[in-house]
């Protein structure tokens, strides 16, 4: 007989209702590798929290169109909108992150109007602020900080971008900071500091070589745009960095709960493992792991082996074609469940103290409030 997937005795259970009901929980971050269900989980938790009485806001990043529509989000306007048809005493707001606008607002807040204009119209700024490598992660964290400071919500649920690696959103602010402290930036900003003369002349032959290469590579005009941009930005970035550090500390605070979302597949579970370890290293509070889209069978009592043997028996005898086909199908289903169960066991063995919750795969996508409510219920029913 097959063991019921999910029926592991010693694994601590992730009790999400306890987390969302605890008024001390102020921020929930849903993270995980691409496509595992981060946005769905964030939205479902938000709805459930609201319907259990919290004043919740969900910050989504690039939600699937129909999921966004289900929450009444039709445009990317970067402000939380109330979600209709939420039952119970709480409230739910939802928003989609507009990374460019968030970035623009930071610049406007930190630079005088003239300098802000210089930055906002620079081609490099436009490239940086709408590119995908790190900016989105950075801006999601920035927006989280803003929502928190506004004090309007008692629970903020953040979704994270579909990164190639789940860690990008932790690393992006650091990377941007390192980049702005880098030697290269100092060379590029030197002309401004040296009163407009080419900084490269001030340096030794090594720098001359570099300047030559940069000019060859980029062309003189590009280099000039770049220098203007970097020196304008440099003036703004002190404040920028301070905020990144503030958000980082917010993430470490006891009111924050990280929920790592994973799919029961090797790559996703490996990524989840890696992420769990990384959170521990950074002393970020992990609530637990949600294994999403788990395949189960209503006929779990019939094992893959018995089902396959019976199908074979019927096939060799002839007749009962339908039953044979159904048994084949069931065999495949049970094999898949067993594979997924093994992936889960690997994870659990490596991380025996991490609470785990499982959400079954539904046969269709989640794209209305009722679907989200259903996912919320499944998340809580462990």
């Amino acid at each position, binding site marked *: 007989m097959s063991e019921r997937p999910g029926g592991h005795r010693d694994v601590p259970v992730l009790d999400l209702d306890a987390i969302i009901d605890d008024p001390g929980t102020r921020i929930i971050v849903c993270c995980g*590798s691409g496509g595992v269900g981060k946005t769905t989980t964030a939205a479902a938790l938000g709805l459930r929290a609201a319907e259990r009485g919290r004043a919740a806001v969900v910050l989504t990043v690039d939600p699937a169109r129909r999921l966004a529509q289900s929450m009444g989000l039709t445009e990317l306007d970067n402000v939380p909108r109330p979600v209709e048809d939420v039952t119970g005493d709480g409230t739910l707001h939802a928003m989609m992150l507009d990374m460019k606008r968030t970035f623009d607002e930071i610049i406007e807040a930190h630079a005088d109007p003239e300098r802000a204009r210089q930055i906002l119209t620079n081609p490099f700024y436009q*490239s940086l602020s709408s590119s*995908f490598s790190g900016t989105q992660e950075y801006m999601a964290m920035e927006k989280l900080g803003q929502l928190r400071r506004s004090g309007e919500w008692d629970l903020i649920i953040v979704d994270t971008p579909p990164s190639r690696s789940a860690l990008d959103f932790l690393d992006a602010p650091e*990377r941007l900071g390192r*980049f702005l402290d880098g030697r290269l930036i100092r060379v590029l900003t030197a002309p401004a500091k040296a009163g407009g003369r080419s900084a490269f002349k001030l340096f030794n032959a090594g720098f001359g070589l570099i300047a030559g*290469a940069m000019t060859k590579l980029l062309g003189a005009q590009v280099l000039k745009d770049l220098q203007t941009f970097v020196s304008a930005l440099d003036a703004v970035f002190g404040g920028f960095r301070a905020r990144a550090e503030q958000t980082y500390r917010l993430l470490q605070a006891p009111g924050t709960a990280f929920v790592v979302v994973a799919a029961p597949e090797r*790559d996703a579970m490996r990524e989840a493992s890696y992420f769990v370890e990384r959170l521990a290293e950074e002393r970020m509070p992990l609530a637990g792991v949600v294994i999403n889209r788990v395949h189960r069978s209503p006929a779990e009592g019939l094992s893959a082996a018995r089902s396959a043997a*019976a199908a074979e028996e019927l096939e060799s005898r002839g007749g009962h074609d339908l039953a044979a086909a159904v048994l084949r199908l069931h065999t495949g289903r049970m094999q898949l469940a067993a594979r997924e169960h093994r992936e889960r066991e690997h994870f659990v063995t490596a991380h025996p103290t991490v609470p785990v919750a499982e959400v079954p795969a539904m046969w269709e996508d989640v794209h209305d409030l009722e679907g989200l409510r259903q996912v919320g219920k499944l998340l809580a029913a462990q």
Partner: protein
Amino acid sequence: MGSLRDVRARDTDWDGVRLHVVTGKGGTGKTTVAAALALALAAGGRKVLLVEVEGRQGIAQVFDLPPLPYEERRIAVAPDGGDVHALSIDPEEAMLDYLEMFYGMRRAGKALTKMGVVDFATTIAPGFRDVLVTGKTTEAVRRKNKDGRRVYDAVVLDAPPTGRITRFLNVTNEVAGLARVGPIKNHADLVNGVVASPETAVHFVTLLEEMPVQETLDGLAELTAAGLPPGGIFTNMVRESLLPASVLDAAAGGRFDPAELALGLKAAGLADGASDAAAVAEALAEEIVEHARRTALEQRERESLDASGRPRYELPLLADGVDLAGLYELAESIRNQGAA
């Protein structure tokens, strides 16, 4: 399988295409399909280069090899002879190549690397990074032997995901905002000459699920609007349904009679008493209804993909995951469907 001569003579949907770009939503099987496509294109004695650009060593993983260096090397032999070579493009190395090839400035390039110029480029202007990477790829497409023939019959690029593909390939546009004139701009124009030509086809990998299909359709529209040449759609990880259409149709509407199934279960010796067989049949019926709904949804997704008018190919879900044998199986399926 046909003889070598047959294979060479066959018409494929992409005759004349030398650069096959493979994109798709994350995790749908881009790397797997790119590898299988490279094998399929090489079949029958051709030479194909498989390129990856995100430094993730995905090619090494699917071919079960140690990490690939920044160097073109043969990694597999195709059915009926033919070679697949691979290259893992590292943007830093590509920049050194570029400086050396056009300006003979390797040493300066090294200094730039040390200064973190590449880190800089990826942070501030991914367009620069992309032009280096696509530049290296299109150089391999254009490269000729001494006798004037192309070194590679085809180049297959395991490309960034759908959300980024148009920006990635549309380098001229991306770079134009930053550099209206100058060497980078010229380089981008050269790349564009290959990428926007009929020698290129951008293929999409998708699953039969709502999100990846929607992304594919959006990606196709965006690509076409940018004047880039769309290729085919590879629906990956397709599960065949074993049940007859009439049963599926009824079950999708919630109608499935477990009585007949119960008889079959009993005949197979799966139940002791009548009530036991009935209980198992009830449970299985629930599974069938769900399966039928899923199958119907997949069929709807197929139809919306077909409405795009692009050639579509189906690749089976390999039950034991993708190993080397599985890769050859996918390659054969690609050839049988005329994609290579």
